[in-house]
């Protein structure tokens, strides 16, 4: 059974490819994004309240290490196999080391509609994975140059909309607890999938608009945009196994690893590594990897998690 939110993505993509005049107003796309980010944070925060925070430290460290590692693997592939200029290779590597909140939301919806549980602190890992790859990307592009204005990079990265809303939601959920949140659930829980559907409709339209970029920049990006998430998902699966996560948790962690950022990282790269061509990274992250993950990747990562879990236990 295909989840209807995926069908909204397909509708958007088809409408975009047919050059329909359909468009979600920018303010509405922003509204939907804000509600989704807060909802994800709130849900994670409520769960955090149920368990000692300290217990999360090892997971956090391991996941940050993965966020540093993945762009370091992607960079030489892009630079030498893809023959991309240094700045472009660094920027794309940063996109793939970081995460996509939209893809995370689809994975949550996927598991939810199959009633598969997962460790509910996953939003914390989502937040932890957003930033490290950005720093690696900047260093890969510039070296550890003095010229980089780390203070303003830090401001841009840690006070961007995504982090503030996710972290803010986490804290509010943590302080208010499940009872406190009951009164705002109609907006942040009941409407979650409806808003996800609208979000994916617009994502479909945006994805379709990236096709031009892809056509210009050739087949390497297409292959990279599929191979890299598959590889990263393997890394994520391995990490999930060794952290002792449930099948649901492994699926989510693999999805996080496999997803490529298209909000926080592009904005940060545009300011910090301006000579990188944003068309390249967005064509790959949005034009290939996002639809791949949403349509095929998540079921694959789930199957992988089931298999790996059974294999280990068997």
């Amino acid at each position, binding site marked *: 059974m295909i989840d209807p939110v995926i069908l909204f993505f397909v509708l958007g993509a088809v409408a975009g490819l047919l050059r329909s005049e359909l468009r979600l107003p*920018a303010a509405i796309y922003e509204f939907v994004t804000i509600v989704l980010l807060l909802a994800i944070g709130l849900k994670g925060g409520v769960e955090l309240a149920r368990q000692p925070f300290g217990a999360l430290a090892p997971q956090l460290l391991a996941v940050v290490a993965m966020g540093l590692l993945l762009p370091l693997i992607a960079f030489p592939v892009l630079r030498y196999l893809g023959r991309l200029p240094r700045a472009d290779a660094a920027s794309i590597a940063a996109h793939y080391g970081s995460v996509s909140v939209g893809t995370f939301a689809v994975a949550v919806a996927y598991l939810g509609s199959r009633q598969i549980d997962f460790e509910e602190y996953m939003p914390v890992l989502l937040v932890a994975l957003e930033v490290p790859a950005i720093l690696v990307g900047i260093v890969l592009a510039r070296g550890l140059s003095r010229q980089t204005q780390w203070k303003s990079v830090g401001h841009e990265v840690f006070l961007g909309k995504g982090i503030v809303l996710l972290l803010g939601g986490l804290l509010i959920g943590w302080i208010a607890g499940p009872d406190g949140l009951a009164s705002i659930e109609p907006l942040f829980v009941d409407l979650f999938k409806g808003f996800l559907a609208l979000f994916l409709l617009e994502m479909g339209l945006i994805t379709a*608009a990236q096709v031009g970029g892809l056509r210009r920049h050739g087949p390497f990006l297409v292959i990279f945009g599929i191979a890299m998430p598959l590889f990263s998902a393997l890394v994520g699966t391995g990490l999930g196994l060794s952290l002792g996560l449930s099948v649901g948790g492994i699926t989510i962690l693999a999805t996080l690893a496999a997803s490529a950022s298209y*909000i926080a990282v592009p*904005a940060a790269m*545009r300011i910090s590594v301006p*000579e990188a061509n*944003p068309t390249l990274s*967005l064509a790959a992250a949005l034009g290939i990897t996002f639809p791949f993950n949403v349509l095929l990747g998540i079921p694959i990562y789930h199957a992988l998690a089931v298999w790996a879990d059974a294999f280990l236990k068997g």
Partner: protein
Amino acid sequence: MENNKRKLLTVVTEAALEATLIKDLDRLNAHGYTISDVRGKGSRGVRHADWDLNASIRVEVVCDAATAETIATHLQTHYYDNYAMIMFTSDIFVVRPEKF
């Protein structure tokens, strides 16, 4: 009437640069600026504002010719190579010239 002649410097560029440009303008002695959201097309392709990174702004600064020159040079040096950006000046006559 000649002493109320000033320059209007118009810059059309990526919305991602807004915060940076505002800091630059303050430092380069612009006494003010006006910003509006636009969309468009140029040598770097179509920018139709359907989402953040694809949005453009128009920045307008009323100032004397020397300041316009300074700002234009600064922007050209720092951003022209890596950002979608065009820039032009025109002659205007201001009311209350002491403000600019």
